[in-house]
């Protein structure tokens, strides 16, 4: 399946949607703040205006309490002359007839009981807000002293402007940020998709480019690259395996077939037929052994080691295996020197580690000496050094030339020198797979002369022994 490169449709990008949401929330928050400021400033202004009005009102009331209508009119006219923000009106009890003042009429529904209040009146057609307070004069006349609430009006207008302009600015910037973010993120995700496509098309070497920003997208790219690398490694491993199976299994299968054909020959004596069948059986066992080893390496490489490690004494295991092989070495005319700490408690897969050590020892026995070597010595050592657990098997054989060492760990690789000896070519690769499965590695070093094969496991496998019983040598009773 090929994924098409993503077209840049702004509102369909995750970053745009994210930015839009953030912008909307931010806008709401801003409106809230602006609203609160507006409300509190406006309230403050109103209180000031009311205080002021109360003062003016009480003064004028005192001056006009008992004044004659003509006197009232004269005073109010002169006050109106000042053309400041003051507004005045005196009406009769019914508030219908205006006696004096610069307000055209009594504001609708304005309370007459001396409470301060806001009202709106029309000044040459423009609505004007004002704050006022009514009081009673002699003869049932009512006086209203008021002032224009200009500051409040200006404030409201400005606030409206701020809300519109600021909101617009926030939305505009939000959209821009969303577009930019979307564009850049999409470009980088596109790069990832393209790399993935190329990989699917068969270019196993392709990797996702890193932007260098070291951000989470780079983290993602690194993870993907790691994954691609692993897939490429597994695929090439598989290809290599199938090539090698073709060679290493087909050859013995072919021999098997030839032998079976030979066994069918009517002219064979009973003894010869029996021998032929025994040969077939032995050949089959070899094939099965190769097959098992192959399966095991393959399963180890896909990583099935997470399950059920056990706690055991690695030192005891090494001594045990050395003891198992000591007579074999002796028969082959070699000495086997063992050196381990008294105990080394680890949590790992005992059977697999045991098999790895066995393979190393068998290799040492098999290749550790050719006819030319003068000392036939094998050594197995278990130490903890440089933060790793190291099991070394050393021999005095011809060793492995430096350029061949990496290859010797690969599956089925049998260095030319060993082609003539029996074996599957899987021994060391199994050791390497077991080591990798435990987070360790295998090193092939020079023993001057000879080879040191080192099986190294991370120290994290060590178990701090709390109770001696936890790390006992299992299987004390014979089943």
């Amino acid at each position: 399946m090929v994924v098409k490169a993503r077209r840049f449709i702004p509102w369909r990008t995750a970053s745009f949607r994210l930015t839009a949401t953030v912008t909307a929330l931010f806008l709401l928050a801003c409106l809230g703040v602006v609203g609160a400021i507006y409300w509190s400033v406006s309230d403050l202004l109103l209180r000031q205006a009311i205080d002021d009005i109360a003062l003016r009102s009480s003064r004028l009331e005192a001056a006009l309490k008992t004044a004659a209508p003509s006197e009232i009119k004269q005073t109010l006219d002169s006050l109106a002359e000042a053309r400041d923000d003051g507004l005045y009106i005196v009406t009769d009890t019914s508030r219908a007839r205006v006696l004096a003042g610069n307000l055209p009429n009594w504001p609708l529904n304005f309370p007459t009981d001396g409470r301060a209040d806001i009202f709106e009146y029309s000044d040459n057609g423009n609505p004007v807000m004002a704050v006022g307070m009514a009081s009673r004069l002699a003869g049932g006349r009512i006086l209203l002293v008021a002032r224009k609430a200009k500051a409040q009006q200006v404030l409201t207008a400005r606030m409206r402007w701020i809300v519109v302009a600021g909101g617009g600015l926030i939305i505009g910037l939000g959209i821009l940020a969303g577009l930019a973010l979307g564009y850049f993120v999409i470009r980088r995700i596109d790069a990832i998709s393209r790399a993935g496509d190329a990989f699917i098309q068969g270019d196993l070497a392709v990797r996702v480019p890193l932007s260098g920003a070291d951000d989470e997208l780079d983290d993602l790219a690194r993870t993907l690259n790691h994954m691609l690398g692993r897939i490429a490694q597994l695929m090439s491993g598989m290809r290599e395996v199938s090539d090698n199976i073709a060679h290493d299994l087909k050859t013995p299968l072919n021999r098997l077939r030839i032998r079976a054909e030979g066994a069918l020959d009517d002219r064979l004596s009973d003894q010869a037929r029996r021998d032929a069948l025994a040969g077939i059986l032995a050949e089959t066992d070899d094939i099965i052994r190769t097959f098992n080893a192959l399966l095991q390496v393959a399963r180890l490489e896909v990583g099935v080691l997470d399950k059920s490690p056990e706690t055991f004494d690695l030192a005891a295991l090494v001594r045990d295996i050395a003891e198992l092989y000591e007579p074999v070495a002796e028969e082959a005319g070699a000495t086997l020197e063992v050196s381990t700490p008294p105990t080394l408690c680890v949590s790992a897969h005992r059977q697999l580690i045991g098999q790895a050590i066995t393979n190393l020892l068998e290799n040492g026995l098999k290749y550790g000496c050719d006819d030319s070597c003068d000392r036939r010595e094998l050594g197995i050592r278990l130490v903890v050094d440089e933060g790793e657990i190291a099991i070394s098997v050393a021999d005095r054989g011809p060793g492995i030339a430096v350029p061949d060492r990496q290859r010797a760990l690969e599956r089925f690789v049998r260095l030319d020198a060993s082609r003539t000896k029996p074996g599957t070519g899987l021994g060391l690769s199994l050791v390497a797979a077991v080591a990798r499965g435990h987070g360790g590695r295998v090193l092939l070093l020079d023993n001057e002369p000879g080879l040191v094969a080192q099986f190294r496991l991370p120290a994290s496998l060590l178990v701090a022994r709390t109770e001696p019983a936890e790390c006992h040598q299992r299987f004390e009773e014979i089943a």
Partner: protein
Amino acid sequence: MRILVIEDDVEVAGYVQRALNEAGHTTDVVHEGDGGLNLARSGGYDALIVDRMLPGRDGLSIIADLRAGGDRTPVLILSALGEVDDRVVGLKAGGDDYLTKPFAFSELLARIEALIRRSQPEEQATRYVVGDLILDRMSHKVTRGGEHIVLQPREFRLLEYLMKHRGQVVTRTMLLEGVWDYHFDPQTNVIDVHISRLRAKIDKNFDTLLLHTVRGRGYMIDDGREG
């Protein structure tokens, strides 16, 4: 002995049946899981050979069912799955032994006979006797014809295992598992070397050889008389 074989591969099952019959056992064969469980429940078998992957009901659940019902008949599991973990799972489910396919028939026969023997009561012997060879499990002393034989601890365990299965063939793999607890296959003849050392200690200088090599199968300790 009566043995029930639950194995879906008709050819393998037939081969196992013929060979077990030839070895003197009475063998019934079932090719699928549910029928196998019913027959096993009806009882009367000395051992069961159960394939792990079966049509109908898998081998492990058959064993788990039998064990849940208190049936202790020894079970040998056959399986194409041979990894360490698979083995552990098989034995945890109640199997007594585990054999990976493909297997040699001699291995199967040796193991099933060992299982049958193991389930019999004369087990808790404190000493094993074969001819004039005596192994005392308490004092860890071995004598032959009254003569004390000095053995290394591992040689003692090897001899103990062989004598416990006296008169029966034990394979190299069984020895590796039973004496060393290794469930993997060394390529070299390690076991042979250990056996020949043991043989040098117990059979050398004696007229009757007790430790026999059974060609193509394994080893057996026996004084040649029945019982």
